[in-house]
């Protein structure tokens, strides 16, 4: 939806969540935005496609130490996320997980309508894009020609189990997603084959146990190997060519394939919001971190400006300045008094410490 368009009236009749600020992305920078906006009395709702806060820190390197957060000689990435959540808590942010923001459109009366792929609708005075490297999306395995089967026979998530009923399903992977869907689809599919490159699984031990039990009973096939190619016509899969661990080749009969090869970051729907983009990043000014659309800000890894560094501490700085500019939109005409958290009784009241 282009920025100039206004949304159709029938969309407005859905339940609307009204908020001062809608933050897209709950990575470290999005969470800290809640804090800086909160100090200036703005309330936030956040949307993230992941099922928990923390963005890259939580998804890509939770166990790793970070050494360049000011004041922490060393802090674990997950630990930093927990501290940021604790710091944001006084401002009661509302998180909407496991959904992706799809559209952002200007409302005729001012502000923005934001919708997600789960149908959640927000009206916000200000939109803050803290989308990092983009939305986390399932990785496409580098199997030649796989694109042709996507959406018809190859799926990276199960939206409707019915689509797998009475099908020959091949599930590839060894983590929780692979094992969970193996166990869930086994009763309704014609046949389920689980393929993994080794006989060890990262998934929860009890799912692995259940899987092995089904294999022992002959109700599930387990194959150790890797996908090398696909065959079928018009996007309809009929067979998956695999290399078995003993070096031999085989074709597994399959009409549906579910590969689980982890997540990667893709820009996603942000490209359709009518914003200026530069190499998949959103150019902003360095005073307010506002995009080409007034009222929409971009902070953290997703933005670009001369000298930009993709560091957490840069994102923290950006949200502090952005919050000042957002305040002028949310409460026009209200005077903004610069205050320190150390000494301001009014800030301390907001933080619940005095």
């Amino acid at each position, binding site marked *: 939806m282009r920025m100039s368009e206004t949304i159709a009236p029938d969309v407005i009749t859905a339940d609307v969540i009204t908020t001062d600020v809608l933050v897209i992305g709950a990575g470290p920078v999005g969470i800290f935005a809640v804090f800086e906006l909160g100090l200036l009395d703005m309330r936030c709702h956040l949307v993230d496609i992941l099922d928990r806060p923390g963005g890259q820190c939580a998804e890509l390197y939770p166990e790793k130490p970070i050494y360049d957060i000011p004041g922490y000689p060393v802090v674990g990435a997950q630990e930093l996320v927990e501290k940021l959540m604790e710091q944001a808590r006084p401002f009661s942010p509302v998180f909407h997980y496991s959904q992706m923001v799809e559209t952002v459109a200007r409302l005729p009366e001012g502000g923005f309508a934001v919708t997600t792929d789960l149908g959640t609708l927000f009206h916000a005075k200000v939109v803050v894009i803290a989308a990092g490297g983009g939305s986390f999306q399932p990785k496409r395995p580098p199997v030649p020609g796989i694109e042709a089967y996507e959406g018809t026979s190859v799926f990276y998530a199960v939206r409707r189990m019915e689509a797998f009923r009475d099908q020959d399903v091949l599930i590839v992977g060894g983590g929780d997603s692979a094992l969970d869907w193996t166990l869930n689809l086994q009763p309704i599919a014609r046949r389920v084959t689980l393929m993994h490159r080794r006989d060890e699984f990262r998934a929860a031990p009890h799912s692995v146990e259940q899987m092995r039990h089904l294999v022992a009973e002959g109700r599930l096939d387990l194959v150790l190997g890797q996908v090398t190619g696909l065959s079928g016509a018009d996007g309809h899969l009929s067979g998956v060519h695999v290399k078995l661990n003993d070096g031999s080749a085989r074709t597994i009969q399959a009409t549906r394939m579910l590969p689980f090869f*982890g997540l990667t970051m893709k820009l996603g729907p942000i490209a359709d919001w009518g914003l200026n983009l530069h190499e998949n990043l959103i150019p902003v000014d360095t005073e307010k971190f506002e995009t080409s659309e007034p009222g929409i800000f971009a902070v953290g890894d997703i933005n670009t400006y001369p000298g930009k560094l993709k560091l957490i501490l840069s994102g923290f700085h950006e949200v502090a300045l952005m919050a000042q500019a957002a305040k002028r939109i949310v409460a026009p005409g209200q005077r903004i008094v610069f205050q320190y958290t150390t000494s301001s009784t009014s800030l301390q009241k907001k933080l619940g410490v005095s």
Partner: protein
Amino acid sequence: MPKITFISAAGAEQTVEAEIGSTVMENAIRNMVPGIEAECGGACACATCHVYVDEAWYAKVGAPEPMEEDMLDFAYDVRPTSRLSCQIKVTAALDGLVVRTPERQA
């Protein structure tokens, strides 16, 4: 300084000097060796620095730790001598190491 030779899937060879204590991936990136992407910068979180260690060197380089083995699940065309090059530390004993880059990274 120890030397490392990278051989591409097409057979192109490139030999680089590697500082002791650095990772094989870092040397590939520093010398712009094609075929190594290293999206996550060495955090064992992306599997785009996948290499095949030359058979003759595999025993010296050693097998992957469990965390790396888990991440190898996300790589493409994994073989018995597959390693993630960001998890191989250069030592004096690895002078002359030969690794091959796969046809594609995941």
